[in-house]
């Protein structure tokens, strides 16, 4: 198998290796390029989801406004949530998995490069399918958790829910395929000496998130399949008339949905755990605690789902059990907070933009975490359910938490990916506008919610005491929008004019900084041998020089001598060839699900394309 040469022999010839141009991106299997594709696509969806949110806020700026049609309003808030969760935060995390993890573990690529490309294409097609309703027959409009039996054909007659069930299904396949790949990569592709307890924290969090994805995604897949069958084939899973139980949807949804919450936040926690030690010039305080608390969070995340469902009347025993487990899960989360603060404590903190976002993350996440604990208690949750208090909480953890963490990662790894530094001044403008805008948008929602304002309402009468804070929230949301424009300006400006980054602009600790920026296709000319945790720091300074000043001069020497000199041996580094098949296979699956909504004939055609893709994939010669 290893000896096949030449490009012919498969159904299609393998595409030749081009390093530039459209087709080089379409057929790429390089994890760094796939990461960039993920990042750019997810950020585009992030902007779309943001525009949807701005429209929602505009409608709510004043009482009794009729700026948007109610039907459109419902679609906008539903699609805002779906877009932000499934098309922005999750894939932005995956973008970092792709770009960072193979570099951090000293690998040349992921374990299955073509499977990795398949994940990306499925994500793109899933995103398109989920958004297809804007052009064809209306988008989902029942809230992102789509409670049954509002979602049945009796109450959701339009096409919107069809895009929901099929789009999310395709996205789920993409997530599971990607997560399986990263589990095998992290377990099996580590450089010599990179034991599990020497793995960088971001890689550890990737592993935990991948395990959560692989186990939680099938649950929502089944829930979606059941709803698809109910809608398209007349089954009775959620039909009370024949004994079906709409509450089952809620359980299946949240059995997936709560691990999903940790799928969204753990990558950001991993990023912060990389950024803070780098800029505090100290190793992460309590590495093992951060890892184990991550594992405990991932594990306990499975035992708290029904706290989303207290008002369905689970009974006192179930309420008590889920309230307790929810309060307990705050402990490992708080452990991490203490670790981050401990890392900063006594450090020589260099206040670069990534640190602003990481500290912003810690600060805002504490607020979101505390409001979360406040609805762990069942009686107070009865009061808060379905109010703006919940909206405030979830945005503090997902926007203030996940998004701040992800931006910290963007500023931190941008030089590695592009070879250029991002503007610091613009970065700090971005941070402060976003930080202030975010707190003034979502902070007042706590009071609105406790004052009784229900979430998802189209408008509200004046004189409820909600007018002022709604206006504040709306104005502030546009502050966030301005901060995003500054960020985009910074990105485009830095791509052209940013100062050259060099291998290691931050004097960082992990292996991705030991190689050039942007990294060569093969990443490491020679696979590094890892001697300690914070592998690159150890290479630069040896142990015992924690503050990084003692042998600063050695840095250059090591990076040249250890990793640069072997580059002329690159002729015998064989990288996987680009391939058409991931795209064809993904397209086949897309046609299966999209076809299901049009005509079974199209779905059958999709199955044929899928088979063609899988067989072409399997028969593709290993062309090295």
């Amino acid at each position, binding site marked *: 198998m290893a000896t096949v040469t030449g490009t012919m022999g498969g159904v299609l010839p393998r595409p030749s290796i081009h390093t530039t141009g459209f087709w080089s991106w379409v057929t790429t299997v390089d994890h760094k390029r796939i990461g960039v594709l993920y990042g750019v696509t997810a950020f585009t969806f992030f902007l779309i989801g943001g525009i949807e949110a701005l429209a929602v806020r505009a409608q709510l700026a004043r009482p009794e406004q009729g700026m948007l049609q109610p039907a459109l309003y419902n679609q906008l808030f539903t699609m805002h949530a779906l877009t932000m969760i499934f098309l922005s935060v999750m894939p932005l995390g995956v973008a970092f998995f792709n770009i960072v993890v193979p570099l951090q573990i000293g690998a040349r690529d992921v374990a299955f490069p073509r499977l990795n490309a398949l994940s990306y294409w499925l994500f793109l097609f899933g995103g398109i399918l989920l958004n297809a309703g804007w052009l064809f027959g209306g988008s989902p409009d029942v809230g992102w958790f789509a409670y049954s039996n509002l979602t049945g054909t009796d109450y959701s007659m339009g096409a919107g829910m069809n895009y929901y069930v099929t789009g999310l299904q395709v996205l789920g396949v993409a997530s599971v395929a990607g997560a399986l790949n990263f589990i095998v990569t992290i377990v099996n592709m580590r450089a010599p000496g990179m034991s599990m307890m020497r793995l960088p924290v971001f890689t550890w969090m990737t592993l935990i998130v991948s395990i959560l994805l692989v186990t939680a995604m099938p649950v929502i897949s089944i829930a979606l399949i059941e709803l698809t069958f109910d809608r398209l084939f007349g089954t009775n899973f959620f039909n009370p008339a024949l004994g079906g*139980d709409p509450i*089952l949807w809620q359980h299946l949804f949240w*059995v997936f949905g709560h691990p999903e919450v940790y799928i969204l936040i753990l990558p950001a926690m991993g990023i912060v755990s990389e950024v803070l030690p780098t800029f505090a010039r100290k190793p992460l305080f309590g590495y093992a605690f951060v890892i184990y608390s991550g594992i405990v969070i991932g594990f306990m995340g499975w035992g708290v789902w*029904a706290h989303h469902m207290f008002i369905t009347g689970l009974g006192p025993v179930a309420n008590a059990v889920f309230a307790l487990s929810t309060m307990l899960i705050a402990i490992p989360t708080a452990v991490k907070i203490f670790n981050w603060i401990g890392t900063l404590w006594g450090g020589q903190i260099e206040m670069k933009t990534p640190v602003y976002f990481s500290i912003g993350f810690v600060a805002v996440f504490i607020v979101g975490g505390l409001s979360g604990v406040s609805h762990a208690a069942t009686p107070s949750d009865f009061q808060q359910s379905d109010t703006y208090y919940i909206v405030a909480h979830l945005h503090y953890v997902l926007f203030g938490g996940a998004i701040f963490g992800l931006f910290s990662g963007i500023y931190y790894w941008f030089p590695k990916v592009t070879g250029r530094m991002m503007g610091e001044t613009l970065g700090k403008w971005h941070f402060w506008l976003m930080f202030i805008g975010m707190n003034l948008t979502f902070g007042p929602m706590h009071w609105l919610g406790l004052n009784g304002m229900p979430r998802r309402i189209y408008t509200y009468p004046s004189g409820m005491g909600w007018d002022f804070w709604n206006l504040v929230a709306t104005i502030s949301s546009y502050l966030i929008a301005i901060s995003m424009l500054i960020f985009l300006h910074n990105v485009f400006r830095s791509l052209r004019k940013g100062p050259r980054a060099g291998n290691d602009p931050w004097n960082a600790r992990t292996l991705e900084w030991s190689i050039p920026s942007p990294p060569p296709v093969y990443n490491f000319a020679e696979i590094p041998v890892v001697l300690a945790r914070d592998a690159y720091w150890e290479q630069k300074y040896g142990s015992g020089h924690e503050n990084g000043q003692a042998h600063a001069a050695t840095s250059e020497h090591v990076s040249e001598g250890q990793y640069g000199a072997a580059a002329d041996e690159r002729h015998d580094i064989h990288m996987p060839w680009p391939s058409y098949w991931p795209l064809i296979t993904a397209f086949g699956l897309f046609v299966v699900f999209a076809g299901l909504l049009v005509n079974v004939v199209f779905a059958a055609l999709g199955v044929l394309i899928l088979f063609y893709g899988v067989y072409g994939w399997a028969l593709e010669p290993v062309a090295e």
Partner: protein
Amino acid sequence: MRHTNTGHTQGAHATPKQYVQVAVILSIITALEVAVYYIPSMKAALVPILLVLSTVKFAMVVMFFMHLKSDHKLFSIFFTGPLVLTIVVILALMTLFGALFTS
């Protein structure tokens, strides 16, 4: 530079004869399951007996036909972790719906 150990050479695999023996035991258990189903006097103990018998079958296929008994420990972890999680989720959901002791 072939890897010396691809995982499937771990431990001594059973011989075809032993595979047939396992299959014979599996067949006997299946016959027992169906027999128990038809014996009226077994009705009271039917549920625990059936659950135990099918668990034994499940475990035998996994251990001997899928070689988990002799294979690398990591494969067992990859499989039993989610398996245990699955069982817990099923039991928890059945409890929440009051379906655990009625069927």
